[in-house]
């Protein structure tokens, strides 16, 4: 049997496990299936039309549609908290609808013509919303809305007026082109501004994406005007337009995946992880950054005693909010400010997400506070237990000292007086005998008192320390014993010395009284910062802490000092007691 006490196994740090909800997987699967069905139906219908001219065009449109939807689904899948994926899928639908005109079905024609250029508006939308997939800023939002108006609302009249009123048609087209150009100019302005505000790493991704997106949006409507004079045949113009269009979702997908976003996890997984693991403050910040997909995310803590925000190392943080792209979100526990999340608004557009993260963080911070309070009260408890042990030791010392100085001296003097009565010149023989007997009985009482004092606190322990006291214990043992001493008495604290002695005394008493041992080995050694006490006998074994051997009370003492206690006592194989106590070496 082995009973290690006060030994705490270090627990391995738990890792954050992120899981995507099955519902997203299912939804994206259904989306893919629908897109596939739409494409197949369109191709089937086109084949049944028996129109050799429109079939390649329809096939091309379908391919571009697949590319948009595919890219969108991948982006959505990889970045569930980023709206870019959904926008790309939406762009795919615009492509599909725009291509329906080739089927030559009248009802579909209307829709198709109306939405023919809507993909351009989606592209503008993507440019403005990149990288989070959500619009921010009024100008951006307005520009995107105007883009949709230009590409859809202004497109609708074209269907109705295209045959009978060439003037109006041209006017509308002109208006559409001018407004479209205006949208692109404003867009270019906003994008240039963002490029200038971006850091080097993000600019490397943003610049090619913005350039390609802007040029594609400009070139797709301009291709029919620019290319024919250059000798490009009319069908090829459509191919060029669709190719440019197909490049857009791929560009945005690459942008989303490589644009400095870490893999994002789920807040639920994050909170579970925070609940399980003894997460450090820096680990909390890293986990939040990873979950929300913003590497620049920082978590700061409110130091109420100093009234400043501090980082995880306790260093005060500059709270000047100079960067308009940085957002602060205060984290509170029961309306008490505990910290804040500082994040990049361009990376995380959805403040609600950060708010939820803040709630998770609040739990973590609160747990940290509770842990600190628990540790503090535990520390106080340990201190008070140590004080109790030290007080008990002081009492022992005082009692032993009082008996030594008082009663023991008194008994010597009493015995002396008794003897002197007997040896007085005028003492009768009877008196002499009686007084000698009295003196001998006083001596016996003194011997009893000597044993009592020795049990309270042995003289050797007071006068010389652990080694001498251990030696005296072993000297007076009724069975053969060996004592191996390797202790620096001077270096031991009184509480450690006393505890080691009491353990040794109890273990030796047990060896003689209960184990029926015929020999015992004692080893006291000191290495680094541990004092080790080992007692091994060859007795009957079967001893345990619970068997009322007096060891139980001593284990508490060992525990108070932060030591460890082992007892090994298999039946018929002797008993081994080992105690380790911390000590300054």
């Amino acid at each position, binding site marked *: 049997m082995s009973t290690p006490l006060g030994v705490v196994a270090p627990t391995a740090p738990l890792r954050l496990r992120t899981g995507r909800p099955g519902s997203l997987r299912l939804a994206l699967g259904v989306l893919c299936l629908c897109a596939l069905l739409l494409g197949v139906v369109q191709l089937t219908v086109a084949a049944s039309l028996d129109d050799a001219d429109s079939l390649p065009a329809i096939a091309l449109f379908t391919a571009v549609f697949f590319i948009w939807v595919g890219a969108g689904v991948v982006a959505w899948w990889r970045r569930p908290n980023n709206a870019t994926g959904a926008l790309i899928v939406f762009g795919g639908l615009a492509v599909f609808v725009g291509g329906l005109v080739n089927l030559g079905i009248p009802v579909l024609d209307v829709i198709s013509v109306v939405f023919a250029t809507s993909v351009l508006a989606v592209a503008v939308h993507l440019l403005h919303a990149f990288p989070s997939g959500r619009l921010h800023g009024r100008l951006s939002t307005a520009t995107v809305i105007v883009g949709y108006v230009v590409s859809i609302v202004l497109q609708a009249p074209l269907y109705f007026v295209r045959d009978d009123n060439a003037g109006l048609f041209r006017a509308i087209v002109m208006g559409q082109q001018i407004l479209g150009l205006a949208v692109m100019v404003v867009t270019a302005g906003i994008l240039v501004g963002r490029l200038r505000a971006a850091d080097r790493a993000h600019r490397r991704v943003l610049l090619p994406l913005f350039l390609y997106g802007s040029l594609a949006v400009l070139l797709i409507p301009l291709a029919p005007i620019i290319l024919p004079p250059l000798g490009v045949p009319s069908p090829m113009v459509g191919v060029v337009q669709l190719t440019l269009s197909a490049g857009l979702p791929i560009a945005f997908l690459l942008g989303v995946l490589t644009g400095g976003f870490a893999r994002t996890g789920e807040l639920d997984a994050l909170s579970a992880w925070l609940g399980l693991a003894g997460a450090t403050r820096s680990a909390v910040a890293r986990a939040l950054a990873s979950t929300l997909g913003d590497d620049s995310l920082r978590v700061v803590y409110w130091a109420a005693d100093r009234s400043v925000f501090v980082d995880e190392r306790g260093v005060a943080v500059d709270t000047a909010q100079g960067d308009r792209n940085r957002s602060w979100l205060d984290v509170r526990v029961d309306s008490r400010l505990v910290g804040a999340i500082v994040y990049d608004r361009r990376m995380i557009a959805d403040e609600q997400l950060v708010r939820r993260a803040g709630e998770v963080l609040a739990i973590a911070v609160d747990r940290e506070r509770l842990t600190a309070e628990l540790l503090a009260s535990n520390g106080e408890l340990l201190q008070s237990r140590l004080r109790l042990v030290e007080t008990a030791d002081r009492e022992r010392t005082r009692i032993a*000292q009082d008996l*030594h*100085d008082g009663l*023991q*001296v008194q*008994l*010597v*003097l009493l*015995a*002396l007086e*008794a*003897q*002197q009565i007997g*040896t007085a010149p005028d003492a009768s023989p009877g008196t002499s005998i009686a007084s000698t007997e009295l*003196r001998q009985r*006083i*001596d016996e009482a*003194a*011997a009893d008192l*000597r044993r009592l*004092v*020795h049990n309270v606190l*042995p*003289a*050797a322990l*007071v*006068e*010389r320390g652990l*080694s*001498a006291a*251990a*030696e*005296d214990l*072993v*000297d*007076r043992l009724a*069975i*053969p*014993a*060996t*004592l*191996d*001493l*390797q202790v620096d008495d001077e270096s031991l604290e009184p509480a450690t010395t006393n505890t080691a002695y009491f353990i040794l005394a109890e273990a030796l008493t047990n060896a003689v009284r209960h184990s029926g041992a015929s020999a015992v080995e004692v080893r006291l050694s000191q290495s680094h910062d541990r004092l080790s006490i080992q007692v091994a006998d060859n007795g009957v074994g079967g001893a345990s802490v619970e068997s009322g051997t007096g060891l139980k009370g001593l284990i508490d003492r060992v525990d108070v000092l932060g030591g460890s206690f082992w007892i090994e006592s298999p039946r018929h194989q002797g008993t081994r007691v080992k105690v380790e106590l911390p000590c300054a070496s």
Partner: protein
Amino acid sequence: MRVVIGEDEVLLREGLRHVLETDGFEVLAAVGTAVELENEVARHRPDLVITDIRMPPTHTDEGLLAAIRIRQNHVEIAVVVLSQYVQRRYATELLDNNTGRVGYLLKQRIADVTTFTADLRRVAAGGTALDPDVVSVMVARASMVSGAVGSLTPRQREVLGLMAEGRSNARIASQLNLSEKAVVQHTSNIYDAFGLPVDADDHRRVLAVIRFLSAASATARHT
């Protein structure tokens, strides 16, 4: 005989002074600390020093250390150490220089004035006085580990104990109700068993026996 006393308990110090002066000792000084004791010893060069082990300021073993120093610095001065509790280690330390003139007794022995003063005179004359309590520890210990001690008869062991206490053959004979001749026979058997050479000098024989017992009873190994 000129004596210096070191004992911090006033009542006991005065009791001791009274016992000694009644018995014809000349008490030159009776002090309460080890430092004063050594000063008085250096000043008076007494024949005998009697000291307590535990004394101010630390109340640990300063009296014992002072006694050992006095023995080393003044070979001619006999020292008797008194204590509330006796242990083998201190006896061994006191007897380490092998020259005798050392006593180590429980304080309680003072009360048996006749025996006590006889012990003091024997020590001052070059002999030894070891407390029966510490002797019995040594004999018991030695008989467990040493074949030589283990093979002794109970009577021989009794004689051995009294020898180790420093008693003369005559005293041993009277205490055990034996003839002195029988005691001599027992002692020579003990010497044979221990492999010790027979020495005419009483004190040297006793020292040899104590040395043998001390070595045989040592339990601790310091590494």
